[in-house]
């Protein structure tokens, strides 16, 4: 067996909580991951020991806070294997990072008729900012189709790529289907056409190693909270040559060198894009979360999650009237499903009464739901703290749903 040692569960105090009379089974990691004690303690330590602002004071607390905050930037650099730490911009999350690119790079670079390629499986956060940008600039969206299994139609992608393509913005791992997309092929093909590429790594950062230099992507975004870190912190990686030419999109303190009423001189990247007091404790918590993940190692994480995915997939396939949505060859441990005759919202409520936390809904991927003719799905997402017992509880909850509803 390739499963992680169950002792890992001791790092997540909430797992001892009883929910509706049952021990908690948390299968909603694709929405947000549980936080290990180590991260919670690191965040608390910021407020207890170095509760000062960064890049401002000359006093010791501020110096320590700045060192820890910039240390977190260096940790993220190493995590992504970026060439330089100043290619790492702290944002509020993946959504904040994508909006930053759309409003700064997109608004200054794109013109009417330029094309932005997205896939049909994008999260709303990788659709809406671009749609807004199209309305502002006259650029147009082109959509890479998705197969019945939940894989990108790569032949169609290559056909859609053209001289007007300026940006390809795609999700690395689908939050709804679990599909791992072939981003290496996407990036190299886009670059041949002179287009830039943004990778939404919100779901992949917690379970797959990322190397932005090997990938050669232009932008990459991920969130802290899906990586066992705090909410409200995320990362935009961008190549320095792009960051240098990108105008600021949010003004305020820390993003300037000098201000008068006549003239403003903007700071260099990444500070140009971090107006106002940043989420200092969030960045330091993320630093600790990355260290936590690296100590376990992606090889072990991947093996563990694949084992659970295999077991859960087989178990669900064996239940009459249950259909898995998303059966790509390369998947992470995200399992969307529907139970014939039962709305996923009812499934979610009954699961909750059994102590099993899943997501029920459209997963912020309404175009994808429309593609499959579904209003919603139930989604079970497995992570490092889940066990084969959790797969059994998932199966038992499905039987309970069928018993009540059918």
């Amino acid at each position, binding site marked *: 067996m390739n499963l992680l040692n169950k002792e890992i569960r001791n790092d997540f105090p909430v797992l001892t909580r009883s929910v509706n009379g049952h021990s908690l089974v948390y299968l909603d990691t694709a929405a947000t991951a549980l936080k290990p004690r180590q991260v919670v303690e690191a965040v608390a330590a910021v407020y207890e020991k170095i509760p000062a602002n960064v890049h401002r004071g000359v006093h010791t607390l501020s110096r320590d806070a700045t060192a820890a905050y910039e240390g977190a930037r260096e940790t993220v650099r190493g995590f992504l294997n970026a060439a330089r730490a100043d290619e790492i911009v702290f944002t509020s999350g993946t959504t904040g990072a994508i909006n930053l690119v759309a409003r700064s790079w997109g608004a200054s670079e794109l013109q009417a008729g330029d094309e932005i390629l997205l896939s049909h499986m994008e999260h709303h956060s990788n659709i809406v900012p671009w749609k807004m940008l199209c309305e502002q600039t006259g650029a147009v969206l082109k959509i890479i189709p998705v197969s019945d299994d939940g894989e990108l139609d790569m032949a169609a992608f290559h056909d859609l790529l053209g001289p007007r393509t300026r940006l390809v913005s795609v999700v690395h791992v689908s939050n709804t289907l679990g599909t791992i997309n072939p981003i290496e092929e996407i990036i190299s093909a886009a670059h041949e056409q002179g287009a830039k590429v943004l990778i939404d790594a919100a779901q992949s950062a917690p379970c797959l190693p990322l190397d932005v230099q090997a990938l050669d992507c232009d932008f990459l975004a991920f969130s802290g909270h899906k990586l066992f870190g705090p909410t409200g912190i995320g990362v935009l990686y961008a190549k320095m040559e792009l960051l240098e030419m990108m105008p600021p999109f949010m003004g305020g303190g820390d993003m300037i060198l000098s201000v008068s009423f006549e003239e403003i001189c903007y700071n260099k990247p990444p500070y140009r894009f971090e107006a106002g007091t940043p989420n200092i404790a969030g960045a330091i918590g993320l630093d600790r979360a990355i260290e936590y993940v690296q100590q376990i190692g992606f090889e072990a994480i991947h093996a563990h999650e694949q084992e659970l995915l295999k077991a859960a997939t087989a178990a669900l396939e064996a239940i009459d009237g249950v259909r898995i949505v998303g059966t790509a060859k390369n998947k992470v441990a995200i399992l969307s499903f529907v139970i014939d005759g039962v709305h996923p*919202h009812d499934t979610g409520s009954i699961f909750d009464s059994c102590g099993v936390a899943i997501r*029920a809904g459209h997963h912020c991927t309404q175009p994808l739901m429309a593609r499959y003719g579904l209003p919603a799905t139930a989604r079970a997402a497995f992570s490092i703290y889940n066990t084969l017992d959790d797969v059994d509880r998932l199966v038992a909850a499905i039987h309970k749903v069928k018993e009540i*509803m059918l």
Partner: protein
Amino acid sequence: MNISDELYQATILEYNREPRNFQPLENATHVAHGLNPLCGDDYHVYLRVEDGVVQEASFYGHGCAISKASASMMTLELKGKTLDEAHELFEKFHGLLTEKQDQPEDLGRLNVFSGVWKFPERVKCASLAWHAMDSALQGDGVASTE
């Protein structure tokens, strides 16, 4: 928690399996669209109002058991009600859904929804068609529970 007692009472499940008045109404005088963007519940509510009285009511669309049963029972309750009475019932039902009733008013078959207040995320499901109905009678046409 026994969810069959608290939320999914037998009557609700029956209405979910075989909803009454579950079809569009051809000669409707009022139509409204109710949409819950959170979970995708999506219904049209149809009313035929004559002389200020609801003569017929129906609904069509898709959604969870709670939203479907609630919409179906609503169409049964509305028949014969004046517009003022319909609005008054909406307010009473909304009260039943959103807070524990110390002295609960008897709302007949709607009493099966008296446990919904314990599930705040499901209040929107139970009230969706009612919001649509109320906005239809106010002439707004679209209702959202978000």
